[in-house]
């Protein structure tokens, strides 16, 4: 990890974007007073970004530092789209989460959520900055679009609002259990994406990732920690918690994209997005199964994390588990294949399947039950230390 450069001055086109950002905040319901003394900063870690393209067809050439150095338009377009999707998720998550602030179980959780939302917005700034500063008019347009979409999960939506680009960022985060699941599972996915971009052939993108990854680790830490504290408290039954695991794990797995993805392959060929362990892998990439491979890394990490979460459980309580990666998938080869949470083929008709999903994913009665638990001391208390 090298030294972080914090930019002091912006060009007018980014200043203009900031004005639009301020409008976005009030439009989507985020009160800028919540920021306290938090200041958005543009940060680069140039040392960890690397000087030479690390993989793909341009391996060995100097990394591109400006748009004009990128050798082909298709490569440029792919980079822009990669940055836009990343930025889209950052703002999307704030739109999904802000409404939870009022119902935080403790001051500690409220402040953590606040910090996460500040940092997600900073990540959005960072991506918008890279677009505005490096990609001319096309970049400026894309940076504006980041502020024009609005998560379908945001309680405040205008008639003409288009949803966020990826499914998970349009899923409602209804309550604090959802919040901890989201930060644990979805922000962890975010960490994977950022790590994969940290070796990018486009240097400003790679250099953005170091500081973002540092911040992101707090987000997933908050999720893991929250889930541990819930299990320790033992108020919400494990069976109910399990349903939430089932819901969010499948969503998290879907986020890695389709199997045998050609766009992942192109991104690799262009050197834009590497493997999760690109610098350590030591073997050539299986270019046709890039998404599958990162998904497996993620899945393994979830299993390890779950062991730690289970350690705090009360005597006699069953263990929480990570459902099979075949269960309840909306993306990939298991879309049309029905399996139970253990990955065994589901035998039974349509009705039985609906019933099975009803029993294994959160349903309306579960939500009602959960709301009752929320009236109790449902999560272990924790003090906020500045």
């Amino acid at each position, binding site marked *: 990890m090298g030294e972080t450069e914090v930019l002091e001055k912006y060009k007018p086109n980014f200043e203009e974007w900031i004005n639009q950002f301020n409008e976005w905040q009030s439009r989507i319901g985020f009160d800028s007073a919540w920021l306290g003394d938090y200041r958005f900063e543009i940060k680069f870690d140039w040392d960890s970004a690397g000087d030479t393209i690390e993989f793909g067809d341009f391996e060995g050439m100097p990394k591109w530092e400006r748009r*004009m150095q990128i050798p082909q*338009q298709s490569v440029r377009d792919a980079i822009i789209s990669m940055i836009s999707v990343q930025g889209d998720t950052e703002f999307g998550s704030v739109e999904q989460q802000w409404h939870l602030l009022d119902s935080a179980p403790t001051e500690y959780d409220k402040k953590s959520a606040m910090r996460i939302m500040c940092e997600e917005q900073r990540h959005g700034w960072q991506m918008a900055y890279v677009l505005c500063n490096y990609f001319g008019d096309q970049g400026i347009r894309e940076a504006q679009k980041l502020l024009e979409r609005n998560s379908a999960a945001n309680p405040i939506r205008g008639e003409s609002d288009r949803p966020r680009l990826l499914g998970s960022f349009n899923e409602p985060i209804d309550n604090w259990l959802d919040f901890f699941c989201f930060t644990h599972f979805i922000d962890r996915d975010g960490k994977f994406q950022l790590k994969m971009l940290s070796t990018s052939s486009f240097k400003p993108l790679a250099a953005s990732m170091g500081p973002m990854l540092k911040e992101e680790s707090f987000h997933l830490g908050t999720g893991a920690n929250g889930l541990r504290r819930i299990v320790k408290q033992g108020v919400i039954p494990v069976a109910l918690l399990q349903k939430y695991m089932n819901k969010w794990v499948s969503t998290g797995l879907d986020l890695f994209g389709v199997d045998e993805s050609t766009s992942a392959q192109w991104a690799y060929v*262009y050197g834009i997005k590497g493997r999760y362990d690109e610098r350590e892998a030591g073997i050539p990439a299986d270019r046709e199964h890039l998404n599958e491979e990162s998904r497996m890394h993620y899945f393994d990490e979830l299993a390890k994390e779950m062991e730690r979460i289970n350690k705090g459980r009360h005597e006699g309580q069953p263990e929480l588990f990570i459902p099979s990666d075949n269960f309840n998938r909306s993306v990939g080869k298991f879309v049309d294949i029905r399996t139970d949470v253990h990955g065994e083929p589901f035998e039974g008709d349509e009705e039985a399947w609906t019933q099975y999903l009803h029993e294994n994913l959160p349903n309306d009665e579960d939500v009602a039950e959960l709301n009752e638990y929320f009236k109790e001391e449902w999560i272990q208390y924790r003090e906020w230390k500045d």
Partner: protein
Amino acid sequence: MTSWPELEAMPNKLVNYGVTDNGIAIIELCSDSDGNPLTEGKTSVNTYTRSMWEDIDQAILNARFDDDVTVIMMIGHGEKFFSAGASINYLNTLTPRYKYFFCLHANETLSRLEQTPKLVIAALNGHAIGGGLEIAMAADIRIGLKDNGSVGLPEVSLGVLAGTGGTARLSRLVGKAKAMEIMVTGRKFSFEEAQEMDLVHDVYDSTNNEEFRSDVMDYASQFTLPYAAAKAIGNIKRSVQSGMEIPLEYHLALERELQSDLFQSNDAKTGIAAYVEKKTPRFEGA
């Protein structure tokens, strides 16, 4: 990150010429306000005389015949001017008949540029006024350096018109109405305004002339071998430049011929195969 090549003076010492490693031919206009070779203490205004056109002409031919060259970049020497057009003092010494041949030669030279099936980029490092803009308009792509110059065709103030393709090319580029207004007023305007009317393709906010030179060089590099299909780019240019001037039916016929030429090229095979195999193509320009 292509570096700027050593430039050498053409015979009349009014144009510097050089070719980069990746095949970009640089044609740098270089003269003082009288159109003479630059000497110590004089600013480069890059005005032209018959001698400069001879140099430009020769440089275009060099670039045209050089198989390694796929892109031609025209730029002005110095910080302030791309070119200020014809040297007025020089024009003042000429007979009308000489002036006529002078214009004819300039026109023929710009035609050469326009008809060469290699991409021509005008890097507007400074003002492109009168004949300067006329040269730039014969290029395929124009890029300006932000806040460092203006464009315009002010010939009307001298009681003449923009006669080196100015009235013809400006009206084709920006449309009749806009072209009229620009030329009858003779007003000068910013690169930004020029960009709004698509007269300039992009305006770079490079911090100085040197950085601008490296930025346009990087931009031009994307059209060079092996990453770009230079032959296809050449044929696209041929179809647009010549095709726009003939009836649609003939244009379509010309387009088919140019396409059939490409279908038979190795580059088309390379491009299509690379796409299928999910590799980035490496073209050879044939």
